[in-house]
């Protein structure tokens, strides 16, 4: 025989999963929400997304090529996801240079400094977002209102998010029923006709993306369902106790970054638990923290903080919640 045989341990076939496929699958799932944001926030949204994605790719490339001197894997799409998610988490009128700084923090500090994809304990996009929120609180919380400014880059009409209105009102002692007139209708919330960060506005687009990922087996139902359900139950109970202070749970589900967080951020493979049981615990934890921050915290929105806090517990959850073993002997 002229050929040289290859010898390796079994198995000799490999399934058609690959990191690339998974990551680009997530990117594809993000497209509906992206399109909605382009529709409502116009050129600002497009430019912010482009800047975020390209600077994430650039930073990852530079770090891998010149600092770590390892194989460059920017084509696997994980930096694209980080870029898109980061862009989704900021207002569309954020100055470009801030976006670049955010991308730097997300990729260089939150991801590559830990060793790259797979080794980061926190979701890079969320670290980037929280960094921006703390460093530039004013720019990060003046949200442009949709539609009116489709062709304008900056200096558009801005206003608070629905959650912001609520928080502000409640803290001034107003009741939910008097505030209701200032809040958008549920149908608007559902399709995304409200002020807010780029990607978080349209629940329906995010759900479509989530269903696609479920279908492609990129994510499992455990985290999103347990997360959203927990927020629903938690805020639902409070709403039953006193509907004048605590708004109804559907409002909580449709506003802010809950859908985005539950479907795309909390399910990030690298920073979520491995076993199904662990995922449920993680989702419930995220849900409780989100509700706590939203209702009693200083910030109107708590999804980013909730997920980041739960990220820290992942190693512990992995240790504590093992998968069900075959033929387990009861001790």
């Amino acid at each position, binding site marked *: 025989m002229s050929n040289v045989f290859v*010898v390796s*341990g*079994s198995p000799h076939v490999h399934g058609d999963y690959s990191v690339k496929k998974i990551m680009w699958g997530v990117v594809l799932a993000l497209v509906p929400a992206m399109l909605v944001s382009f529709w409502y926030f116009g050129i600002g949204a497009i430019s912010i997304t482009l800047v975020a994605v390209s600077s994430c790719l650039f930073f990852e490339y530079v770090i891998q090529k010149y600092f770590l001197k390892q194989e460059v894997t920017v084509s696997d799409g994980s930096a694209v996801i980080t870029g898109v998610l980061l862009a989704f988490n900021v207002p569309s009128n954020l100055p470009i240079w801030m976006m670049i700084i955010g991308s730097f923090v997300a990729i260089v500090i939150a991801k590559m400094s830990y060793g790259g994809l797979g080794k980061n304990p926190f979701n890079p996009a969320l670290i980037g977002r929280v960094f921006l929120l703390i460093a530039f609180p004013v720019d990060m919380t003046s949200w442009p209102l949709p539609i009116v400014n489709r062709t304008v880059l900056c200096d558009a009409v801005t206003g608070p998010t629905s959650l912001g209105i609520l928080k502000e009102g409640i803290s001034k002692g107003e009741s939910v029923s008097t505030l209701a007139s200032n809040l958008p209708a549920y149908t608007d919330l559902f399709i995304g006709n409200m002020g807010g960060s780029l990607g978080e506005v349209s629940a329906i687009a995010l759900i479509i993306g989530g269903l696609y990922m479920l279908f492609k087996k990129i994510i499992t139902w455990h985290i999103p369902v347990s997360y959203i359900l927990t927020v629903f139950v938690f805020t639902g109970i409070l709403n039953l106790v006193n509907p004048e202070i605590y708004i109804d749970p559907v409002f909580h589900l449709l506003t802010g970054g809950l859908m985005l967080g539950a479907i795309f951020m909390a399910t990030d493979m*690298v920073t979520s638990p*491995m076993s199904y049981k662990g995922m449920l615990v993680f989702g419930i934890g995220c849900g409780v923290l989100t509700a706590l921050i939203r209702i009693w915290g200083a910030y109107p929105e708590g999804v980013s903080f909730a997920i980041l806090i739960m990220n820290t517990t992942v190693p512990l959850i992995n240790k504590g919640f093992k*998968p*069900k*073993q075959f033929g387990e002997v009861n001790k």
Partner: protein
Amino acid sequence: MKTFNLGGVHPEENKLSGNSPIKVCSIPTTVSIPLAQNLGAASVPIVAKGEKVKVGQLIAKGEAFISSNIHSSVSGTVLKIDDIMDASGYRKKAIIINVEGDEWLEEIDRSADIKREISYNKGEIVSIVKDSGVVGLGGATFPTQVKLMVPEGKKAEYLIINGVECEPYLTSDHRLMLEKGEELLIGISILMKALDVSKALIGIENNKQDAIANLKKLAVNYKGIEVHELQVKYPQGGEKQLIKALINREVPSGKLPIEVGCVVNNVGTAFAVYEAVQKKKPLIERVVTITGKTVKNPSNYMVRIGTPLSFLLSEADSMPEGTGKVINGGPMMGKALTTLEIPVVKGMSGVVIMPEGEAKRPNAYNCIRCGKCISACPMGLEPYLIALMSEQNKFESCEGERVMDCMECGSCSFTCPSGRPLLDMIRVSKNKVSQIIRLRSNK
């Protein structure tokens, strides 16, 4: 439809040779019959250089408890007893016989008649099986007579017959069930008698509808034998998974199937038992699938044990250009061969030939902690964790993670999106842990 609940993967089935009937491979000019063909101790040769042997003559005896007899598959003269290359490239002792004619021992019934009534009692059956050198033909080659001896205090309720053939490509069991259904069922009845059980369940995956139909039709005449259709899912052929799928019992960790009242045998083994008991024919040949995407005629051959693989492949005319890997067994659990100059042995159920493009593994990247290996593992282990600890030489922790439960089905490596060699590292750890366990028990 039934299947097991935990883990599992769906590799491409590629049952290319499913429709090709079993052909008989001609006899080569020399055969080399290895002395270590079964799990357990190697057999001890009882023939010497220059001795004449006939087909079916005993040439090596299994002397330990877990060992098996070996018979000559050809007639001729013993050339020598020497080291030859085995499947892994290491040298093992083998009896090399120069073939002269095809002279069989007289007592062997070579007619095609089907002999139905079983005229032996329990003990006699076990001793015939032992004398005939029957081993598990699914691949593990565990001596069958040992399985038939139910340990004290345990009772077998079910005989489970494994016709799952969950490995992609392989079809030797499939063809056997189609072509030798009657013999198979008699073999099963013999095994039932030996084990003193009243129920036998045959598990077949539903990608073999013709075999299911055939056996269902025939089984009507046999008391206590049921044919069960199973959903296609790898590794359903693992005995613990098969028991779980068929009767929903879980074999406890570290225990044998008899713990839940089951004895599992392969269909090939049942056929070999039929031949041994009813026809007095020891295990001297078996069905081997020769297949692969580039192979011209993927087919199944009845091959004498000891036939050089290169001879079989040239007979099948299946050594295509650009072959990158030759696998002894299925692609999920088989062993890649270093050379074709190895003999066909009792445990060889098929040979899969892969072109160069398929032979290489995907590149390995960082673990992205996606948990796919966990959801794929049929034993509910955490492959990523065990592989990681194995890389860090933390073998005591591996033992705590029950690495010894791993049956090396390869679902984890198969499913890993980062292409990490998880099973390789788990194997390292299994080896080291068994060393640790041995050391501990010696203390």
